[in-house]
């Protein structure tokens, strides 16, 4: 079958989502796919654009996985704009002169920011907020500015105001309507929102009609308003709504709306059957949808139509929940009570700055809409009532009133939701789809997100998703057994708590009081780690030695032939020539294979068990100490050379790395911990790939958490900015102890955080705002561990009875004759199996 050509114009969020959905569908192979992208980069996350100002890069915001288009054979013309459609010849022509014939054409041209035609709007320093290029211009303009004004107090306008605030400007919001977010929220909610935003230092001017922009007396511009007032500012950001990009369609003679927008039907077809339009450029039922979720729905509708399914786009719910400058705001359905007969319940709490309103039907049985400001915890429940037409309780206001008797309130249990209930609106995932995934074996949030994409868009449904998961698992009698193993009916977190609270000092004590049987290779190392994190005893004490996993057991890393590798600590990667000579001498004397590790250290391979104490004696005499490469513990704090030598460095990354490594060395954790410190934003130490990463800024240190390399790499999240050294260390102390206290066994910080309900924001509230009131305790526990650090190898070699553990035979001083090396590139390596057949091995079991 010859392939048809499908051309997509526009590679924004919706255009990309369309391609992603198409690539994953059955009909993908029917098409040769070509897409034009006007911007110089592939699709990125415009919803979280303001994250660019709090440390995210353009690469972080990208929505396109590296190699995705190549892998799916999709041709992309980046930085090349489609300029004409010839419907008779069915061709698209680009700015760079490419002409492509199409069988199907999808317009995903998006929208542009509306700039009101105020005299002076084209002056230098008058900017808009939509693309990464816009952001770059804003950043550049902000460098010489002290005051910034945003024209438009809607959702995007407030996002833009946050950006100006993050850039350190005195920020003003100028809104034509009498209140903020006039489309989504009512007067009461708007007043509360204004109050809260002003408390954050943003000045709000409502009911202001800008009539002219001219030269300022003090600042660059002067804005004049219809009421005679004036505002002087250096930057003006227009964020007064969007307009569909329909110029191509218009020129091609497609039907457009009187106020713009490409007219589409329920199949997202334009007036030309071969051409579809999706996203913000499309006009459905005289409406433009300026949110990403409806755009995604349109994209899916087109893909399903191509696959011959009876899919239709029949409008979209415009409910939203978001955090504006840290303020929770939500709007559901008919927020303005425009439905005839609608009645309202309002709860207002001025001291706590809360505003909640429910709009119900005349008979009081259905929820029509809601507004929440200050706290949007009820959003999920209210939205489900509204979307699914679930009958309200007899006292509907119980849904928004605070529960003072300690009860959980009238939240809608996940059981009450029908299978059709949409849990994730970004990816249109229903409860039914989630149940299917659970039936197919997804038993945790992590797996469920990977399988269904639910909660991977805006993340607003995370709590709801979790409660559906828990309830469904319980229903299947499959409530995931979170017991650590058959010997303890507890999670790792429970065991940690038991050990701490009951002052338990040994595995025997713990299993006798709280477990059964003998224990195993799962619970023993886990308990050994917990005991070490609580009491920090020497790990090879008689009562602990038998608990230690393979590597801890010999304080070295066991390799495939039963020999060990040795990694002395090299804090921050700084090493003296004498230390290098000492290591080289040991390596030479014991004929060890040497390799530089990925963590700025030196690994010595091929040591036999009985050689370890002698080798360490020599290393310790040379001033080296254990590197804990064998332990689930802090490994290393990688660093770049920093401001001491580097022309670009802004702070002493090596000095901080050494301080941090010496502070946390030996700290036992549920999994290994890696850290890094970079001396500037060039990030040569790759701090964003570590559990804890620190990057120097002009004003202090930025702290990143929960990154890792390995099998599933994950970039760390920006946790706090411009910290002084003391605060930085305090946050890291708390972060590590909270992780040690609450993570599952062998759970890296990334997975741990992703499974925390509330994720990064929750973690910030615990570590920075001390939401749980445990920070003092965490710091104290960390101080106790730091205060009892010992080099385990130093302790081992100074005790003859401990050294004895390292003999291969208890009744002979002979070495294990099964260990045989051959030479390769001038060093040793273990023999391979086929080589061993030719070498007589005298002692075999």
């Amino acid at each position, binding site marked *: 079958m010859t392939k048809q050509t499908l051309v997509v114009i526009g590679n924004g969020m919706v255009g990309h989502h369309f391609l992603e959905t198409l690539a994953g569908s059955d009909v993908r192979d029917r098409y040769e796919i070509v897409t034009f992208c006007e911007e110089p980069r592939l699709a990125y996350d415009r919803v979280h654009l303001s994250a660019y100002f709090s440390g995210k890069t353009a690469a972080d915001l990208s929505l396109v996985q590296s190699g995705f288009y190549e892998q799916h054979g999709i041709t992309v013309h980046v930085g090349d704009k489609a300029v004409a459609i010839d419907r008779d010849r069915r061709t698209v022509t680009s700015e760079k002169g490419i002409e492509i014939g199409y069988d199907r054409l999808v317009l995903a041209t998006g929208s542009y920011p509306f700039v009101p035609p105020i005299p002076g709007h084209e002056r230098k320093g008058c900017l808009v907020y939509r693309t990464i290029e816009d952001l770059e211009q804003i950043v550049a303009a902000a460098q010489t500015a002290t005051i910034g004004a945003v024209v438009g107090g809607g959702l995007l306008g407030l996002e833009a105001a946050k950006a100006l605030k993050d850039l350190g400007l005195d920020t003003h919001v100028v809104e034509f309507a009498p209140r903020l977010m006039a489309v989504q929220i009512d007067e009461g909610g708007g007043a509360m929102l204004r109050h809260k935003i002003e408390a954050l230092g943003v000045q709000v001017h409502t009911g202001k009609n800008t009539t002219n922009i001219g030269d300022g007396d003090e600042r660059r511009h002067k804005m004049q308003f219809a009421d005679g007032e004036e505002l002087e500012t250096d930057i003006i950001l227009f964020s007064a709504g969007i307009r569909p990009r329909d110029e191509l369609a218009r020129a091609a003679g497609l039907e457009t709306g009187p106020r713009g927008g490409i007219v589409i039907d329920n199949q997202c077809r334009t007036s030309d059957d071969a051409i579809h339009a999706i996203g913000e450029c499309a006009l459905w039922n005289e409406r433009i949808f300026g949110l990403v979720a409806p755009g995604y729905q349109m994209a899916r509708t087109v893909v399903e139509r191509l696959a011959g399914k009876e899919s239709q786009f029949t409008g979209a719910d415009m409910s939203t929940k978001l955090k504006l400058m840290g303020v929770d705001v939500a709007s559901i359905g008919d927020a303005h009570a425009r439905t005839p007969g609608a009645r309202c319940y309002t709860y207002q709490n001025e001291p706590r700055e809360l505003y909640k309103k429910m709009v119900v039907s005349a008979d009081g049985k259905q929820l029509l809409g809601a507004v929440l400001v200050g706290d949007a915890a009820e959003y999920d429940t209210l939205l489900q009532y509204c979307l699914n037409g679930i009958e309200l309780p007899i006292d509907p206001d119980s849904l928004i009133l605070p529960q003072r008797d300690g009860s959980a309130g009238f939240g809608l249990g996940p059981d009450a939701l029908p299978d059709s209930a949409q849990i994730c609106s970004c990816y249109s995932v229903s409860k039914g789809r989630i149940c299917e995934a659970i039936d197919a074996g997804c038993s945790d949030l992590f797996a469920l997100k990977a399988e269904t994409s639910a909660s991977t868009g805006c993340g607003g449904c995370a709590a709801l998703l979790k409660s559906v998961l828990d309830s469904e698992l319980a229903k299947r009698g499959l409530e995931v057994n979170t017991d650590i193993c058959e010997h303890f009916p507890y999670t790792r977190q429970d065991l940690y708590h038991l050990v701490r609270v009951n002052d338990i000092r040994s595995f025997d004590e713990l299993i006798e009081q709280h477990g059964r049987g003998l*224990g195993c*290779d799962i619970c023993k*190392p886990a308990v050994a780690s917990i005991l070490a994190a609580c009491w920090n005893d020497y790990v090879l004490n008689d009562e602990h030695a*038998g608990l230690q996993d393979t590597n801890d*057991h010999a304080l070295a890393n*066991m390799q495939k*032939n039963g020999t060990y590798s040795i990694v002395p600590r090299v804090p921050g990667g700084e090493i003296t020539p004498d230390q290098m000579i000492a290591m080289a001498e040991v390596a030479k004397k014991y004929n060890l294979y040497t390799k530089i590790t990925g963590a700025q250290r030196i690994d010595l391979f091929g040591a036999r068990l009985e050689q370890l104490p002698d080798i360490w004696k020599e290393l310790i005499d040379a001033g080296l100490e254990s590197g804990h490469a064998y332990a689930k513990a802090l490994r290393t704090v990688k660093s770049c050379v920093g401001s001491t030598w580097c022309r670009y460095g802004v702070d002493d990354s090596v000095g901080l790395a050494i301080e941090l490594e010496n502070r946390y060395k030996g700290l036992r954790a549920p999994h290994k911990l890696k850290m890094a410190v970079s001396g500037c934003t060039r990030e040569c130490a790759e701090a964003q790939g570590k559990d804890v990463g620190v990057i120097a800024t002009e004003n202090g240190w930025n702290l990143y958490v929960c990154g890792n390399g390995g099998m599933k790499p994950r970039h760390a999240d920006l946790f706090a900015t411009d910290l002084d050294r003391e605060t930085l260390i305090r946050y890291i102390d708390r972060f590590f102890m909270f992780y040690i206290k609450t993570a599952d066994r062998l759970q890296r910080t990334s997975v741990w955080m992703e499974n925390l309900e509330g994720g990064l924001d929750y973690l910030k509230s615990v570590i920075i705002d001390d939401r749980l009131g445990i920070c003092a305790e965490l710091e104290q526990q960390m101080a106790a561990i730091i205060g009892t650090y010992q080099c385990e190898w130093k302790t081992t070699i100074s005790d003859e009875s401990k050294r004895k553990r390292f003999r291969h035979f208890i009744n002979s001083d002979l070495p294990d004759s*099964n260990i045989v090396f051959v030479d390769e590139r001038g060093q040793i390596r273990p023999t391979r199996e086929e080589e061993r057949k030719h070498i007589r091995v005298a002692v075999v079991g």
Partner: protein
Amino acid sequence: MKNVNAAKQNREGQWVDVCAVEELPPNSGVCALVADSQVAVFYLTKDKTIYAVDNYDPFSKANVLSRGIIGDVKGEVVVASPIYKQHFSLKSGQCLEDASVRIATYPVRVVGDRVQLGHREAVGQPFCRR
């Protein structure tokens, strides 16, 4: 290879003296050389029993089982290989993950304060209750 234990073999011929009981670390393992065999010897304090099996791990082909963690899987006393973590019954040598794999066991006895091992796969007590 010369049998370095020849001198230690006692008059009964079958039994080889390897070490004193107190040299066995509690709930952990050591390796003993018996004739040409490497034997992993484990002392479990809970049932006061000494177990002896091959030290050779047939999966990794390395002599390492004495360095594994001991415990139980559904009541069966086992050692977990320190390399790829398969479990072997300390009573029968049977591998729990692979029915086709079994390691050899050794009879154990305690004479006075000395631990003695019998020959590989010899009929007799695979362990000794003290």
